[in-house]
């Protein structure tokens, strides 16, 4: 058995296009993943309230949300398939060298995906056909598979950022320990917690934003109020926690990926007591026009105002990531995350102290912004970790240039996919609009709530 057999590196003129194609596929897929992680739990929450109270309003809500869930899940399934194809289509060098090291993570994720797909079929088509308890129970594996699926996919990504569980001898991979690689790397814990929370934050704020739009237009009955509070309560609780988890993630990155940290903060030269810069852009080894916070970076990243922060210049230019893309994505994520946490705190304060959801229009206007903004933060976070890892696909082990395919025609594939995905996004928008405008079904006309199956 020659597991160390690898493909020869090649020259690919369109590496950037290949990376962009991967990024596009990812950016379309990841918001759908958030709904896969978090939305089933919210639907089940509504169904549970129906079972507890017998109040029809909860059943109507759960059934309407089920339609949204199944439409988004279908789109998530197919966009996820594109991603798994692209692993081999775009990055055969990466797959042939390291498939044996990290592949197990995806094999396990495959089973999570199976469970998700099977039980979503049962849950969706079992409405009003299975007993209430059996139906509710059929939703629980979907929620659990969302968690295990995140665990297994992120085990691979965290390994790419903090590779371990193998040796490289004479350019060949030996001594492969997949369990150590996937579950023993230092990035899995914070990446998993960060992403899992993001799933609830993005889903929560997006769903709440939809009802906030309705509120601003005068649609504000008991139904809308319930439909807003279920997702918003989760998102409001998760968003302050996310700030702490993000800070934890940044401190770990500072330890294990100093070059990425330098790119996030635009640190050109290694220095003690490094300042933190808000806004501005990176040019010639420094942040221009930004607002400096003296010693801020050393304090935040190392909890020591005089800690030494390694600069980009510490590594050769060929080993540095694109600084501005990484830094702007990072600043977007952090600033939006802070905004979401503040909005969440406002909501929690109103709910606990004033015993009511906030009443002013300002809060709902901000909620409308918070929905799409949370998606920007989500994608910004992934740009931060993925672009910030460049030029490596496996950090300090394999360069992205050695991973890419030798095939011609990447721009054609990229353009075709972009056209398809533009249509997909338009279709999703149209579907959600149709579902939002569908008349409320009552108990007497259950079929309408599922569109006749």
């Amino acid at each position, binding site marked *: 058995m020659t597991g160390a057999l690898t493909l020869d590196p090649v020259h690919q003129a369109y590496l950037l296009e290949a990376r962009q194609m991967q990024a596009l596929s990812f950016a379309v897929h990841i918001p759908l993943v958030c709904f896969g992680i978090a939305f089933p739990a919210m639907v089940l929450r509504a169904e549970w309230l129906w079972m507890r109270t017998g109040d029809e309003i909860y059943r109507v809500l759960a059934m309407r949300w089920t339609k949204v869930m199944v439409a988004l899940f279908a789109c998530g399934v197919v966009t996820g398939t594109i991603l798994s*194809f692209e692993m*081999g289509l775009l990055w055969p060098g990466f797959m042939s060298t390291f498939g044996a090291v990290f592949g197990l993570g*995806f094999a396990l994720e495959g*089973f999570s995906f199976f469970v998700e797909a099977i039980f979503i079929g049962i849950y969706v088509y*079992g409405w009003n056909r299975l007993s209430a308890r059996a139906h509710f129970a059929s939703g629980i594996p979907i929620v659990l598979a969302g968690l295990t699926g995140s665990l297994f996919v992120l085990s691979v990504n965290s390994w790419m950022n903090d590779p371990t569980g193998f040796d490289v001898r004479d350019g060949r991979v030996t001594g492969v320990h997949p369990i150590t690689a996937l579950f023993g790397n230092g990035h899995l814990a914070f990446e998993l917690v960060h992403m899992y929370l993001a799933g609830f934050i993005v889903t929560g704020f997006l769903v709440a934003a939809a009802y906030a739009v309705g509120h601003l237009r005068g649609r504000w009955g008991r139904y809308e109020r319930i439909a807003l509070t279920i997702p918003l309560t989760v998102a409001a609780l998760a968003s302050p926690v996310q700030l702490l988890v993000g800070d934890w993630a940044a401190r770990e990155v500072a330890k294990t990926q100093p070059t990425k940290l330098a790119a996030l903060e635009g640190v050109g030269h290694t220095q003690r007591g490094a300042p933190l810069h808000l806004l501005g852009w990176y040019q010639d080894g420094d942040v221009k026009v930004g607002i400096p916070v003296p010693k801020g970076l050393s304090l935040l990243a190392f909890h020591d105002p005089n800690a030494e922060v390694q600069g980009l210049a510490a590594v050769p230019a060929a080993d540095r990531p694109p600084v501005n893309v990484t830094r702007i994505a990072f600043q977007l994520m952090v600033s939006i995350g802070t905004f979401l946490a503040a909005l969440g705190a406002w909501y929690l304060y109103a709910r606990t102290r004033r015993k009511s959801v906030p009443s002013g229009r300002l809060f709902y206007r901000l909620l409308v912004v918070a929905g799409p903004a949370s998606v920007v933060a989500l994608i910004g976070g992934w740009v931060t970790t993925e672009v910030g890892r460049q030029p490596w696909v496996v950090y300090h082990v394999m360069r992205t240039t050695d991973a890419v395919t030798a095939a011609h025609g990447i721009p054609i594939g990229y353009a075709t*996919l972009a056209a398809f995905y533009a249509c997909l996004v338009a*279709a999703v928008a149209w579907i959600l609009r149709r579902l939002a405008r569908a008349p409320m079904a009552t108990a007497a006309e259950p079929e309408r709530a599922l569109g006749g199956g």
Partner: protein
Amino acid sequence: MLGLHLYTLPIFFVVQGVALYAILAGADFGAGIWQLLAGRGERGGRIRDHAHRSMAPVWEANHVWLIFVLVVLWTGYPVAFASMASTLAVALTAAGLGIVLRGVAYALRSVSASAAEVRAVDTLTAVGSLVAPFALAAAAGGIASQRVPVGNARGDLWSSWLNPTSITAGVLALLSSAYLAAVYLAADARREGDAEMEATFRLRALIAGSLAGVAAIAGALVVRSDARRIFDRLFETPAVLSVAVSVLAGAATLALVARRRLDAARVSAAVAVAALVGGWALAQNPVLLPGLTVREAAAPHDVLVLLVVAILAGGLILFPSLGLLFRLTLRGSFTAPPRIERGAPLPGPTSGLAATLTATRLAGASFVVGAAFLFIGDGGWPHAIGVVALGAFIVLGLSALAGEDARE
């Protein structure tokens, strides 16, 4: 012969995955093909509805077999996977886009209001259902005819999947998908007591089955001149046994359909397709790609052990779940008339004001503790405690705010 070595186990699972994908997702693609050929008018609409209803609860689960095949292949035989995917890039892109079309069409169908909209959406499904199985089978034909060399995109991007063997495989895949779908749909119609649809799809099953048989014979002649090695191997033991099973099961299916033994036909049709996949695998064994045997392509020993353990353990969860889904589907549970259960209030702990206050305070305390451990703590344990405490904050917060969801 297929020796039982550790390094052959993952490919054994891959072949099973391909066979299951062909007989399950293949039928879903076939249902899409019948939607294209449904014709206009009210009857055409009923045919398309029947095809949609039958596949709707199961297509996602069936689709996952493709993902299973990919992940086991790239974990167990990484170099072979990378060589295949890079050379067959165009075919796989086409298949992927066909799958995207199907997924989006499925999502669109639930909100399509007018007959014209439904028809347009079904056309989308049909296009995806033609492209995806053709492209995937054509890619398999490229592998079978040794047109996928080891290396990063070393083979031709076009002739690797647009060649006589590939086109034969693609056509055969379309016909066998249509055949499977017609058999399943006829059986479903019978269960639902829909005599018109039963007759419609029985006829289609007989036509598609006969065409698939003719195509298989014609295809064999094409493969004989195009890919002699795989042709010869198909007619040696052990592959020939599998091919014979396929032929017999295919013929038996036609007889069963003609005699309205549709549930038995369901099984024999699936056996026919699975045995064909098995025959190809046995003929191909032990060579995965030109100059690369299964043994040479296999990942290191420890990886294979873990992979096989993971698959077996996953199977323990997967097969009971799949069994439940198919039992419910085949019993007609998802097509039965809905019955609304009155939501009966369950006795539960009534969260009084005192309990809510406690939960709020506990949530606040958890947040402070969690924040302190996560922010100040250094190393695994303090961070784990921090994460658990912050998780408790979210859970307690949810319970504290739960009672007021419906406050007027």
